[in-house]
């Protein structure tokens, strides 16, 4: 008894298919709303697929490179987005991402990530030689007067969570990323607004010192409250174009 039904349904289905095909351009033009939220988080999904979000936290296992951007000062993040767009930093994928975005939108994106908070995986200290760790700790907390290298904490805050408005935190970053940045400054492929204080400092460090600093920083836990310090002691040890200040 089902067979005749099929027989009559088949031509109907064919007709329907033909009708649908004829309607396709119009149907394609009317895009559906799917309840995808109209939020900045949704707009910047392209960023959080690498940098992580609450829903997509950074991996705790395996090699990591992408830096933590959540909770860094908005001024710092905005400067970096500008630096990628203007060729002062070299990472083609980042340049490609931000190349055609407006200053206003980049400000909004930077402000958004500055208010985010994400846990950051910590490198195990057990894998780093004690002597290297001690040297790293010394450089970060005290600097090296003979090399004319100031302590990292002098600018990046006693808790190393950065300082407003534009000094980044140094904890919660992968070791490879820190190495790559200091290397890029030494090689002249990363620039900041002049005077480029970090280029000066990186140039005074040996490669062994770079490794010591990155090892210690990457294995130092990110505090639960990772807010940047409201400010740091002035004047800064070196003049920095990214954090302009009146100097005597």
């Amino acid at each position, binding site marked *: 008894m089902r067979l005749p039904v099929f027989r009559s349904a088949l031509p109907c289905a064919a007709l329907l298919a033909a009708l649908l095909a004829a309607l*396709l*351009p119009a*149907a*394609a*033009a*009317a*895009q*559906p*709303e*799917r309840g*995808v939220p*109209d939020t*900045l988080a*949704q*707009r*910047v*999904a*392209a*960023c*959080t*697929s*690498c940098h992580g979000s609450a829903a997509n936290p950074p991996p705790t296992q395996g090699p990591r490179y992408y830096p933590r951007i959540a909770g860094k000062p908005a001024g710092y993040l905005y400067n970096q987005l500008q630096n990628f*767009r*203007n*060729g*002062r930093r070299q990472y*083609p*994928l980042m*340049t*490609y*991402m*931000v*190349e*055609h*975005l*407006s200053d*206003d*939108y980049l400000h*909004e994106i930077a402000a958004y990530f500055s208010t985010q908070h994400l846990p950051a995986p910590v490198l195990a200290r057990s894998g780093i030689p004690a002597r290297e760790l001690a040297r790293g700790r010394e450089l970060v907390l005290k600097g090296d007067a003979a090399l004319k290298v100031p302590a990292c904490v002098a600018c990046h805050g006693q808790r190393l969570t950065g300082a407003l408005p534009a000094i980044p935190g140094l904890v919660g970053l992968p070791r490879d990323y820190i190495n790559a940045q200091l290397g890029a400054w030494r090689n002249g492929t990363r620039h900041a607004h002049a005077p480029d204080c970090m280029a000066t400092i990186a140039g005074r460090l040996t490669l062994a010192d770079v490794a010591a600093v990155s090892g210690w920083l990457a294995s130092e836990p990110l505090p639960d409250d990772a807010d940047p310090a409201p400010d740091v002691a002035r004047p800064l040890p070196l003049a920095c174009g990214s954090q302009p200040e009146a100097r005597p």
Partner: protein
Amino acid sequence: MKRVLIALGLLVIVAAAIGAAAWPRAEFIPASSPAAWAATPDNIARGAYLARAGDCMACHTARGGLPYAGGRGLATPFGTVYAPNITPDAQTGIGAWTADDFWHALHNGIARGGRLLYPAFPYPNMTKTTRADADALYAYLRSLAPVRQPNQPHALRFPYDRQIVLAGWRLLYFKPGVYAPQPARGADWNRGAYLVEGLGHCAACHSPRNGLGATGARLSGGQIPTSGWYAPALDADHEAGLGTWERAHIVQLLRTGVAPRGAVFGPMAEVVGQSLQYLTDADAGAMATYLTSLPGAAAPRPPAVPPADAVMKAGKQLYEHHCADCHGADGRGTRIAGQSAYPPLAGNGALTMADPVNAIRIVLNGGFPPATAGNPRPFGMPPYSPHLDNAEVAAVVTYVRNSWGNTAPSVTPPEVDRWRAVPLD
């Protein structure tokens, strides 16, 4: 003997005559009056608009450099050509140029002093610009703050670095001439043709280039030299597909970067971001009128070998995990707050062209459409190069090329690998 000599002599004369006739003599059309290029607010504003329409800034500005001060290198198969400083600095820019000098460069491809210009500067298109518009452009460029920045010499290989070779190229491929309106087509169509073929220099990318770098007469699509992106045919419904688009949607795409049928990406994001978004609705509409009138090249597509079931199955799984939230399991894209946020993949010619380079690179690199007045906060697409391997990218691209009515040849992991390593810039 005498006859042979006469015959030979005649032959030489005829050859010389043909040569002379073919020689692209520099054409001179005088300015209507010095008022045409005077530094009046009106001339300057009109010139600024035309400079946007011509996207002059894109090439004449280096990354992070001062606008119009030059220095951006254009990689070509013959070497790198560096765009010059066109700010009105007397020593390093065009401060010493007269309006006639400027016209000569734009219309004839010859710099002040007689040096032949390389067609990386698209003077085969610019030559169609009227003298009045050239004068307005001149007035605008003269109004910029002069920047002292010496030009970087071109880095071209021998023999392409020789002016005599360039002269030969011009003999073969260049003829100066202002756009000649076709009265039967109406003002809107003619305005569109003037912008598309002239200042807009769409053919610089959307037309195939021959072995000597000359573009064809039709906007039939082309691989952009060295950057690798494929600029789709604007006259073929199975590529850019404009012939089946509503005119309003083309205008929307040109002015905002997103439309219900597709979004711009890669080099076209720059063109919309820096140039087309600043056009008036009337001019963008005129371009749409002209583009949709191009005779359709409905090239019969070779029957695609259907993709392997295993690849389609893997691709579907990846698609559902990574793509469907935004582009929809039905491939129809998503509208958010009344505007196209994620383009449809069903029926999207950008994905199904014979050359899969664009589809592969979109998946590898993701990206944002340009921020424009009509779409100031674009939705972005994550780059998948860090997350998917070559086989996975090949599977998902093959899947979107062969779902929801799309058909196109499968993509292989080596094809993906090839584009993974190519720099984006």
